[in-house]
């Protein structure tokens, strides 16, 4: 109802604004208010800058600590020795049979070479310490060499052999020479020998291929990350093959086709709940269902992938639904209006428009899965596995679990491996996230 008295009080003279608030006073108040506002805005900006700086500072500290601890792992110390391939040791029967030659005692060759290099070392105990300069894995290199080219037998070769992990640490400066001998892992005589070798240019630090090409090992200088990388690869492969199509199909169905009723409400709530379930619970579920009930192999990447699919499914569904919901309804009407069926509308218009968001969500889900550790512990992917897995059914471990294993190892040399493995994991995560950003930028659409 319109107030019939409205507009009827015009004959009563009203005070002008100037009478209530003179111009000078108004200007003064305006200025005061303006100053206050400026101060407020400045403060607000400052908070933003400070929190950004803090975040950046933490990042710098974090990276600095990891990189400074870990970068040395990308190098390895090698010692050159004149190895004489004595036939009596390498191939006592003289028939050049590879299988038999594999069993020969190559450590004897190394011991002899060291003996020749340091003739003054006589005592049994010192000899033992001397032999420890070279990695126990060096014998495999010699065996491989001889089996590949048997003509080496009887000759003397100058070969670069990996040093023991403690000599490696010494060369990298991780061992303090000024400490009293009793508190040092590398004793005085070893240091003297190494220094002598260095003086003869018989010690170098080279790029550490072993770290990138080998599986795990009890010996730090032979331990590598390839087994974990491949394990993570198979886990992620299984995860994406399962969770992407299932998650996408679920999202499309729920968003576009499902009737809105009690059941879909319950499903919706439960999907959101699943995203919040602690991941170790998924590990227990995987152990109970996939290993104990379905009898899949323990420690296998396929089980890890199955478990992590369950883990990433809610992430992918939620992200995909959000992306689908963000497609403007006008596009749907446009397609329906020219006679596209609902199916065609979804496949021709809604999904392409939602794809960047869906892919971003998927990649973020995958990055989460790559960093996931707890559920993998539950299904036995924490076992010590030397062999590099060749398929998803082989026993394997994953990058974050490898980090956990190395961080738990007592040898000092695993510290740098741990940090290096973290760097590798971060590198993969960074690449994945950059890819997500790229996708978002590349396919971003303006309406």
């Amino acid at each position: 109802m319109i107030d019939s008295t409205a507009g009827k009080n015009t004959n009563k003279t009203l005070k002008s604004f100037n009478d209530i608030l003179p111009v000078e006073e108004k200007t003064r108040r305006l200025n005061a208010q303006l100053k206050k506002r400026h101060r407020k805005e400045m403060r607000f900006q400052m908070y933003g800058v400070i929190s950004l700086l803090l975040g950046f500072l933490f990042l710098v500290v974090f990276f600095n600590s990891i990189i400074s601890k870990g970068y040395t792992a990308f190098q390895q110390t090698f010692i050159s020795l004149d190895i004489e391939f004595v036939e009596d040791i390498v191939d006592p029967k003289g028939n050049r049979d590879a299988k038999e030659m594999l069993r020969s005692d190559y450590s004897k060759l190394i011991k002899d070479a060291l003996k020749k290099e340091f003739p003054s070392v006589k005592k049994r105990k010192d000899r033992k310490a001397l032999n420890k300069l070279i990695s126990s894995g060096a014998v495999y290199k010699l065996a491989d060499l001889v089996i590949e080219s048997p003509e080496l037998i009887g000759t003397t070769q100058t070969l670069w052999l990996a040093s023991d992990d403690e000599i490696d640490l010494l060369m990298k400066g991780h061992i303090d020479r000024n400490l009293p001998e009793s508190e040092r892992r590398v004793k005085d005589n070893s240091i003297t020998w190494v220094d002598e070798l260095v003086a003869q240019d018989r010690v170098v630090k080279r790029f550490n291929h072993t770290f990138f090409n080998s599986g795990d090992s009890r010996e730090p200088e032979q331990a590598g990350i390839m087994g974990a990388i491949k394990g993570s690869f198979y886990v992620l492969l299984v995860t994406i093959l399962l969770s992407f199509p299932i998650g996408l199909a679920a999202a499309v169905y729920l968003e576009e086709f499902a009737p809105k009723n009690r059941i879909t409400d319950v499903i919706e709530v439960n999907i959101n709940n699943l995203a919040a379930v602690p991941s170790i619970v998924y590990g227990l579920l995987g152990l109970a269902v996939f290993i104990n009930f379905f009898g899949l192999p323990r420690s296998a990447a396929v089980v890890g992938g199955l478990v992590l699919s369950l883990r990433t499914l809610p992430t992918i569904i939620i992200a995909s639904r959000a992306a689908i919901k963000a497609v403007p309804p006008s596009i749907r009407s446009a397609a329906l209006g020219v006679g596209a069926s609902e199916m065609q509308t979804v496949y021709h218009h809604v999904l392409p428009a939602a794809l960047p968001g869906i892919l971003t969500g998927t990649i973020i889900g995958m990055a989460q899965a790559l960093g996931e550790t707890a559920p993998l512990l539950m299904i036995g992917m924490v076992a010590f596995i030397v062999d590099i897995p060749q398929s998803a059914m082989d026993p394997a471990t994953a990058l974050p679990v490898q980090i956990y294993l190395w961080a738990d190892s007592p040898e000092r040399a695993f510290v740098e491996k741990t940090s290096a493995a973290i760097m590798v994991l971060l590198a993969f995560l960074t690449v994945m996230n950059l890819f997500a950003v790229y996708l978002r930028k590349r396919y971003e659409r303006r309406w």
Partner: protein
Amino acid sequence: MQDKIEYGKTVGDVFVENPRMSVRGANVYYADKQAIHDVDLDIAKNQVIAMIGPSGCGKSTFLRCLNRMNDTIDICRVSGEFKLDQDNIYSKEIDVVPLRARVGIVFQKPNPFPKSIYDNVAYGPRIHGLAKNKVELDEIVENSLQKAGLFDEVKDRLHESGTGLSGGQQQRLCIARTIAVGPEVILMDEPCSALDPIATAKIENLIDELRENFTIVIVTHSMQQAARVSQRTAYFHMGHLIEVNDTEKVFTNPEHKLTEDYITGRFG
């Protein structure tokens, strides 16, 4: 509160000879709320019929019934008889997909697909399988853009995105997209309300030309526009069809008191 008002029967010439579409006893509900009350209306061939009325009176709702766009709204229920030529469009035998190729729609806000201009126009013919080969498709696209008065402006950039055009061009692109499936009827829901006066004038001229080949139903909130482009005008009020007459008669000598109040600006 005004309680029940008796709106009575629609005044004017509801029926025409040999209509393109005919509607009898249309009722539309959104959940429990009735948006259209018992509407009868014939839509004549090769004519522009304008629907006017205060906002919320059900013009868009009625328009969307004519090509079953209301099917996509879950809570919307439609009853009554809607015929296109001799076919009852709500009968079970009718599939909405070919129906929408016969009754196209242009929306208020231009909504080209985020695809090239060519693909926008080619989309309809493609999904309906109208063109046998690229040559035929090219011809349909060019012809549709020409009818929509857009071809000369975009012929050098057919493969650039349709969303990069100006608002008026986008709307003509949407019209071309609708024409490209060769509809008999084109529904337009306030097609100019998001456009500037020059773009509006272009679209109005276009509507006049399109009348030769198509039957057009246009919803508009501008009475001048209704007067300029249409031959018949239907006035809706609170979900009731109050009056249908020749446009000239509606604007010079309305039969119903409500129509007169509306066109003289007493409410709106």
